[in-house]
């Protein structure tokens, strides 16, 4: 009982913004809004929102690794791609019956996490840090991209799944929930929306607990001063590896959800531009706080899409200007800076 309340007490803490009844009432209001809104909206908007949600997991994972742990991984898209392809290969070979797509999600995320264990062991136990870490992870994802791009030939197949090179892999089934009287196929519409929203809330709350736990404390300590953290008796490599694997699993989850959303995965999802995007989302929101990351990612994604829709060829220029201005005006990230400004407005102290 005591342990359980302490567990939930970790929902708040110095590592996350937002505390007290005010925040949680706001949280519930937003959550309720998110639950109700499909009833008042059209299929496109809902499907598009799911699309935005799918990326958020990767951003949250990067926030954990980079914002909290101080290790800038430039290669989260490697896990995204691995999980996406794994889902494709598994479901193309074994189909969608008996809820296998759900098993495939778990397996695909596990494969990404396993790859992260190997890579992370190599990186952190080799004491690679700073920008070196960024370039090595980027190199890994680019190697995967280059390799996958040239697998167009029929010899590149796993079972009945063609890797299909740069054109990408398609024809995998969407998520399918077995149901008496006909499986429920989760096309990007209301059903998939609730599934992904549920996952998102779960991941968000668990991450809040994680970063406010002693694990989170140590992670932040490593970011601030790894030597000191080690001199307090922590094996910093294990903590970094732990965060890296969790972050990779979340990137993998994004990859799987993205793949099921569009029934398509491509090598360019592991390319240079794709690799840079999560960094931008996380940095714009405020990398050292998961709430800021979550909101920031959604804001950036929808703002950039809206710009592209309405801005014609000026869209990219405006995006660029917005990014530069954000960095200049909101040093700690748009959301984090905004939150602390609001916090100050209401006379609260020590927010964030």
């Amino acid at each position, binding site marked *: 009982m005591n342990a359980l309340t302490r567990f939930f007490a970790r929902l708040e803490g110095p590592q996350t913004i937002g505390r007290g009844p005010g925040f949680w009432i706001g949280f519930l209001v937003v959550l309720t809004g998110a639950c109700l809104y499909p009833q008042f909206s*059209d*299929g*496109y*908007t809902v*499907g*598009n929102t799911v*699309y935005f949600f799918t990326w958020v997991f990767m951003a949250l994972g990067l926030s954990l690794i980079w914002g909290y742990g101080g290790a800038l991984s430039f290669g989260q898209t490697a896990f995204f791609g691995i999980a996406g392809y794994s889902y494709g290969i598994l479901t193309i070979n074994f189909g969608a019956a008996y809820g296998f797509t759900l098993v495939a999600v778990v397996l695909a995320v596990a494969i990404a996490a396993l790859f992260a264990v190997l890579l992370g062991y190599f990186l952190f136990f080799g004491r690679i840090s700073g920008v070196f870490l960024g370039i090595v992870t980027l190199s890994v994802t680019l190697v995967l991209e*280059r390799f996958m*791009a*040239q697998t*167009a*030939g*029929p010899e590149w197949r796993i079972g009945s799944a*063609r890797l*299909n*090179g*740069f*054109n*990408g892999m*398609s*024809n995998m089934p969407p998520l399918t929930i077995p149901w008496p009287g006909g499986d429920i196929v989760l*096309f*990007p519409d209301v059903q998939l929306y609730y599934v992904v929203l549920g996952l998102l809330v779960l991941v968000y709350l668990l991450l809040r607990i994680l970063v406010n736990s002693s694990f989170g404390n140590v992670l932040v300590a490593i970011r601030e001063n790894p030597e000191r953290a080690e001199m307090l008796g922590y094996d910093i490599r294990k903590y970094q590896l732990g965060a890296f694997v969790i972050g990779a699993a979340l990137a993998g989850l994004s990859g799987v959800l993205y793949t099921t959303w*569009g*029934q*398509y995965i*491509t090598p*360019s*999802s592991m390319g240079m*531009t794709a690799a840079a995007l999560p960094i931008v989302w996380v940095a714009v929101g405020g990398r050292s706080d998961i709430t800021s990351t979550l909101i920031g990612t959604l804001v950036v994604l929808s703002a950039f*899409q809206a710009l*592209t*829709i309405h801005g*014609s*060829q000026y*869209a*990219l220029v405006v995006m660029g200007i917005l990014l530069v201005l954000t960095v200049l005006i909101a040093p700690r990230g748009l959301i984090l800076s905004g939150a602390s400004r609001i916090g100050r407005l209401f006379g609260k102290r020590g927010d964030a």
Partner: protein
Amino acid sequence: ADPIKLGVLEDQSGDFAAATIGKVHAIQLAAEEINKAGGIDGRPLELVIYDTQSDNTRYQEFMRRVLQRDKVDAVFAGFSSASREAYRPIVNQFDGLAFYNNQYEGGVCDANMIVTGAVPEQQFSTLIPWMMEKYGKKVYTLAADYNFGQISAEWVRNIVKENGGEMVGEDFIPLGVSQFSQNIQNIQKAKPDFVVTLLVGTAQASYYEQAAAASVNLPMASSVNVGQGYEHKRFKPPSLKDMYVTTNYIEEIDTPASKAFFAKFKAKFPDEPYVNQEAENSYLAVYLYKQMVERAKSTKRDDLRKEIAKGDVCMDAPEGKVCLDPKSQHMSHTIYLAKVGADHSITFPKVWEDIKPYWLGEAGCDLTKSDPSAQYTPSNPPPKP
């Protein structure tokens, strides 16, 4: 009357923009002409245009948007094959109709797709034998290392073999590579009679300048260059000297229909750097759509496909007469052999009329009977019934 809505998803920025902005302009030109002439059965055309920024994920976002939110009647979409594969599942899911107005590696057998671009059998079965006749039987292929390049290279290999020639080398170049010293040396070592260049994207186009600077001086043959990337306009002569290209359209084609099209294009878009084959494919696709809708008196995909099945959806395009093949929903083309001179002027040593996109149909794709929604290649043909 209610407008007919056409979605247009093309790359107006990013890597591919140089070859694809003209496609948007061509569609705008055709729509304007059609609307001036009273629309399609009295219904005006309304274009819903999004910039896909050379980014596959944008194709996914916007294909969903045009089909689900904008509820367009047909979509004109895609340059790279990857972008087409990215949006194809979505078109299938919503049972939409998409025109892919681009030359490509071929093989898409999908009832939701109509392809107006040229395919390898049209470009290589003409080009390669002609080149072997003129220059000799030793061939070297330099190709982009992805689906388009690999599959096209496979076509070249097969045709060279069928014609009693010899492949003396093949080099595959990852997309984005711009440095070719090693390949230039490989080619010199292999001593081919000519080089087939299947290089894609602006970075890879740097090959020509670098080969010229090293005095490679070999004739070249291509299905993409000049017709798509107008390298002969972008590079200083004579780096593209003796480049032979089979294309269904380029702005230099000297027929009345072509000159009229080119003049209209330039009148509306005077700054257009070049009117390439994809621009013409896009232009004719709008008219093709008009014809089908007028004949079917409907914009429903099934009604349109009934017209296609009749096998007589044909039109006089700027390139000449073109027809839609009911089995594959691909297009027959007039194929021009363009030769680049030392001063980068274009001549046309040969023209082949009415070259059919025969391969898919012969291999077993028949959309009038079934819709596998798949892409096939010579080494991965449709399953035999």
